């Protein structure tokens, strides 16, 4: 279906400010919406927020992992996905900032002495922040990444 440029222009005029504001609010790396067959993707510059892909040889020390999450006005819509085992993590291919996550989907596995223990998403949404990278050692309950539910952004 050919796009009506004028309509697309209107769409951008009305949506862009909202999307940009939302990006600021949430600290999301990227927001993508679909309307009338058109896809609008807005990507934020990295504002120095550390994306946790620490290649440290050691697992994190004790302390509440959740406490490490950066405070944000949209915390109630951000859901940490936590490791279900202690071992080495492997993220699913679509787990990158901006990637889509369906509720209940397999998002990672943790290798425990050669056995892959599944990690599934409790919430659907978009990957907002990575806190580990494939191959990292992870502890039980460790935050692997954040999923932001973006249902209401989609019209």
């Amino acid at each position: 279906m050919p796009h009506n440029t004028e309509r697309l222009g209107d769409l951008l005029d009305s949506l862009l400010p909202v999307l940009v504001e939302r990006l600021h609010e949430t600290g999301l790396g990227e927001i993508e919406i679909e309307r009338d067959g058109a896809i609008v993707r807005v990507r934020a510059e990295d504002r120095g927020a550390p994306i946790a892909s620490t290649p440290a040889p050691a697992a994190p020390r004790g302390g509440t992992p959740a406490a490490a999450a950066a405070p944000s006005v949209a915390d109630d819509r951000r859901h940490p996905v936590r490791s279900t085992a202690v071992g080495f993590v492997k993220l699913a291919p679509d787990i990158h900032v901006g990637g889509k996550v369906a509720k209940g989907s397999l998002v990672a596995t943790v290798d425990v002495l050669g056995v892959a223990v599944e990690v599934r998403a409790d919430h659907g949404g978009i990957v907002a922040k990575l806190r580990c990278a494939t191959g990292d050692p992870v502890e039980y309950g460790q935050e692997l990444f954040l999923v932001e539910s973006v249902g209401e952004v989609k019209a």
Partner: protein
Amino acid sequence: MIKRVLIANRGEIALRILRACRQLGIEAVVAYSEADRESRAVLVADEAICIGPADAKRSYLSAPAVISAALATGCDAIHPGYGFLSENAAFAEAAAAHGITFIGPSAEVLERFESKAAVRALLAKHGLPTIPGSDGVVADEAAAAKAAEKIGYPVILKASAGGGGRGMRVIQSADDLTQLFSLCTQEAQAAFGDGSLYIEKYLIDTHHVEVQIAVDKSGTALHFGERDCSVQRRHQKLVEESPSTALTPKVREEFLVRAAKAIGAAGYRNLGTLEFLVGPDGKPYFIEINCRIQVEHPVTEMVTGVDLVALQIRLAAGELMPMTQAEVERRGHAIEFRLTAEDPAMEFRPQAGEITTFRSPSGPWVRFDSHLYAGYEVPPYYDSLLAKLIVWGNTREEAIARSRAALLEVEIDGVATTRDFFLGRLETPSFLNGTATTGMLDAIGTADILAAAPKARA
């Protein structure tokens, strides 16, 4: 060489192992369950790793979780502490298969010393007197009845795979045996995954005396004196001391030397404890072996000056015995009290909750091994040990006097503890004159002991 140890335990022993590692210049990582996130060992450690939920089966008892945690943190050894996986041969083997040193006997040694019934026979062969009992495990009730008849009632039915005072039952008569045999089998099966039972003569007025031993890889075996653990409640040790009041000097020295010799010859390696009952004839009879560091090890440390946890780590690393028997000097008298979160006034019901006040005793020759602090939440999931008070004196009398003073200094609020029970116990004649036997506390009323306790400042 061991460079980095994963401490796969909790409570006071996790802290104790951490201290030994630091002293040896070995890095340590504390493995903990979600329920122990705020435990003192985790807070004090340079590094810690959460291995699972509160349920021990999925954390401290999970061999894959513990070994995976060691790999994830780059550890080359695991210290299992006591309880949990500490005497599990399959775990030791799995750790070794992943290139990790198990700090304890090897899987092969653990396997050989796994069956209590077989170990009795093995050590009898190497010259240790044993209590009359069945010839190994009893196949069924009929075999048990036959053995019991031969030994003479009362007898004690024991789980061959049991330990820590669990999995045993006194049988007074043939009728009892008929009623309880299958129940005991089921209990042993449920608790230890092995329903095998064996029978021993039940001696009523006995002292429980045990020998701390260590054997290096070349088979050099030393003893570190004995501990008397006769103050028990329902087969659970409450107070331990060294030396034992039940042995004459002549019996003691001969017995200690013989125990060390037998265990070395039987092929045991690393740290261990041989448990004996001292019968009415004043002689010790072997009952079982513990293939781990024990709760009451500080009593021996106080008397010998040897750091047993450090020694255990060095032996596991393959070092030869760093001392000779003549260099193990035993001096004075030490007593340990196991302070637990149990209410003596309520049948020792286990307690859980927040520790609101915590003041530990101190002073000369007073040691207090505890993972508590004010604000710590005692979780309901694990054993109830809160602290071990260990006191040394030149003589038993001096150790008792210091114990009394130190116990009065202990202030733990928020949960009921056994402190007052011990204060009372220190005033009872059987403790003061050293004649306490293992069945005695179950016979004396707890209320009488509590009533004897001097009152601390309210």
